[in-house]
């Protein structure tokens, strides 16, 4: 097949404040049922640079399954199990008046890194909100993976330990907490893709 020359991308624009009816009419925040034996709950609050909760944001997650395999044909590691019918790997949560979002999912397995070696278990995160003209992208890492986290190529590329720590969720017992600070001295580390 012939391909056209490289095309310039369509610019991003803010999601605005009125996306709920179109994007959040279905609840996609539970990737597995809450009574799933391996279910974990992740919750957090999105804050702006003034420390106020962002009540009109949308958080999306994308992750591998418990074995570390993505539900996408591009992930060709057929020795790992995948079951699209029961685990899509995608989730979406709005934020409420208090800026809070939540997901019920399973902890993903480790995934191969950019070179040799593995990445620590992590979840990809996109945040859209009224205001930001394009999404911000971050990752959720797990607090019980200290060894793998220390060797993770992405985490260890962040020099400042304070900044690096913003990507690791906090274990609250019944849930993992992952707050997202869009701006300010506690700002979460965001990625350029």
């Amino acid at each position, binding site marked *: 097949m012939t*391909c*056209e020359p*490289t*095309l*310039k*991308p*369509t*610019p*991003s*624009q*803010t*999601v*605005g*404040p*009125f*996306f*709920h*009816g*179109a*994007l959040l009419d279905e609840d*996609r925040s539970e990737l597995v049922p809450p009574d799933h034996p391996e279910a974990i709950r992740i919750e957090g609050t999105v804050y*702006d*640079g*003034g420390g106020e909760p962002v009540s009109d944001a949308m958080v*999306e997650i*994308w992750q*591998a399954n418990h074995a570390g395999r*993505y*539900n*996408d*044909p*591009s992930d060709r590691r057929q020795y790992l199990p995948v079951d*699209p019918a029961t685990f*899509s*790997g*995608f989730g*979406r949560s709005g934020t409420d008046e208090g800026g809070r979002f939540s997901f019920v999912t399973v902890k993903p397995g480790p*995934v*191969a890194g950019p070179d040799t070696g593995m990445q620590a278990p992590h979840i*990809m995160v*996109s945040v859209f909100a009224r*205001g*930001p*003209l*394009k*999404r*911000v992208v971050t*990752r959720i890492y797990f607090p019980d993976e200290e060894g793998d986290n220390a060797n993770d*190529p*992405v985490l260890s*590329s*962040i020099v400042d330990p304070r900044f690096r720590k913003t990507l690791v969720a906090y274990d609250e017992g019944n849930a993992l907490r992952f707050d997202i600070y*869009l*701006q300010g001295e506690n*700002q979460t*580390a*965001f*990625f*350029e*893709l």
Partner: protein
Amino acid sequence: MTVRAGERDGPGKAGLSEKGDTRVRQRPTDETVGFRPKDNGQPPYLYQDYVATRLRAPKEPLIILPKTLSDTTGPAYGRGPIGELDDDLTRQHAGEPLGERIIVTGRVLDGDGRPVRGSLVEIWQANAAGRYTHHLDRHPAPLDPNFSGAGRCLTDNEGRYRFVTVKPGAYPWKNHDNAWRPAHIHLSLFGSSFRSRLITQMYFPGDPLFEQDPIFQSVRNRGAQERMIATFDLEMTEPEWALGYKFDIVLEGRDDTPMEDRR
């Protein structure tokens, strides 16, 4: 309660009270952060004239993310089955909505010009009077009981999508003195991987409101601005029924997956 600068263009739009002098210049400035050659016409996070970016734009340097399976894969689509009338916003209620009936269609392509197939496109918009079906929209323009303003469809084998809807109206908001949003339709796209995820707005050709709209003007490159404007297309028009607009969308990245492997 005081209204902070970053909230003055809040969802209340015309319904919010004005407190304090937080007006911004109407003309866009070049006070921007985040421009790099790689941005390829993308807007910056911080665009001072769009007040809601001021407290919500990250300021720390972005971390370069190396390509791994975590981002070269992506969701097929983010929802359950598409309903039969989800792509026709004029037929989702008992009666027909008021306004100018239009067809919005185009192709979703990756950076190499390949069609993005079987990919979810979600849209939302104001009604013909410039009012959203949303409890926080208090613009005193009429709601239309026959229009919800939300639609979705999957792209076909050529990457094509198609919606029937009504042309949305312009509406006032609180960003600056006498601010009006140009008529627009919001679009949400997934593409072939996590990297290609895009939420944007489609505008209509020749809109006199472009000049004073900081969201449109946040894209500084003229050629990139034009990539957000649909073209009127007589070919897409259905005679004695609906005007046709064409809007092709190019997503970041390329589809590295061989055709036969795609879902």
